[in-house]
């Protein structure tokens, strides 16, 4: 296996620096929100993680479509990488949201539309990983996974739009004039800058981890091929 390419090493460094800068912006630049004060600072990383989580699930669906068209096993590796990383980021969004909810709503969890659809979305993709492991034939596994991510991706817009379509206590930040949401808060220009900075930062971190996970997938495939060669 080739050593880590220089662009990826540079991306690693940029990701770490951006992550530190995002932390600095959240704690030193963004002002305190008047009602929730410090706990509102979870919002910046919470929304960024949810964003990259959803982005990854859509990326996986696109990779699935390309696999179904081209039958190139590399797209199966890309699809798996996108799902795995998105699961991690979306889990962070769910957990951090839950911690933010405790002092804001008085409970860690409530079965309101956004939380319910987010939990279903996470479980759909956990099931994806479990079901993949149950299929030995690589071609069948890749075909099944591609179709699964395509169907599973329907839950992404449902989760995103749930706070706009149903009555909910979850805040609507983008287009906050929604009349179905009860928990919105106004954002000052500094809050907006911090939010977009963390969104950009986590997008870069996503790309970095995505590249590493794809390399790991390719290495795993190489090991699998060598093992098969040895058996012959």
């Amino acid at each position, binding site marked *: *296996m080739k050593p880590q390419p220089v662009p990826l090493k540079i991306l690693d460094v940029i990701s770490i620096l951006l992550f530190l800068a995002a932390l600095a912006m959240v704690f030193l630049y963004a002002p305190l929100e*008047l*009602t*929730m*004060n*410090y*706990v509102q*600072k*979870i919002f910046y*990383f*919470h929304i960024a*993680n949810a964003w990259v989580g959803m982005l990854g699930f859509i990326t996986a669906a696109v990779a699935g479509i390309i696999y179904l068209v081209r039958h190139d096993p590399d797209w199966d590796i890309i699809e798996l990488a996108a799902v795995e*990383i998105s699961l*991690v980021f979306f*889990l*962070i969004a769910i*957990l*951090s949201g839950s*911690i*933010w909810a*405790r*002092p*804001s709503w008085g409970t860690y969890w409530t079965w309101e539309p956004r939380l319910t659809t987010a939990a279903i979305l996470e479980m759909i993709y956990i099931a994806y990983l479990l079901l993949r492991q149950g299929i030995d034939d690589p071609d069948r596994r890749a075909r099944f996974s591609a179709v699964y991510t395509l169907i599973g991706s329907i839950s992404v817009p449902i989760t995103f739009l749930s706070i706009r379509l149903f009555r909910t206590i979850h805040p609507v930040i983008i287009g906050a004039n929604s009349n179905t949401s009860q928990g919105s808060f106004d954002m000052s220009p500094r809050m907006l800058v911090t939010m977009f900075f963390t969104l950009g930062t986590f997008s870069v971190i996503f790309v970095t*981890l995505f590249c*590493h*996970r794809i*390399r*790991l997938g390719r*290495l*795993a495939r*190489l*090991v699998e091929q*060598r*093992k098969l*060669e*040895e058996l012959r």
Partner: protein
Amino acid sequence: MLEYAISIKYMLAGYAVILVVLAVYVISLVIRWRSLEQVLHSLEGRKKKD
């Protein structure tokens, strides 16, 4: 308005969870990479002997 002490406690808990989950995932990537590399080296070593 939320009490400062309670608010800070939950903020720290939130960021701790974010950092721990991210760190665990990055470490898992490193561990999986190293173990696959070891398997690959041993497979190639056996192939050379044969």
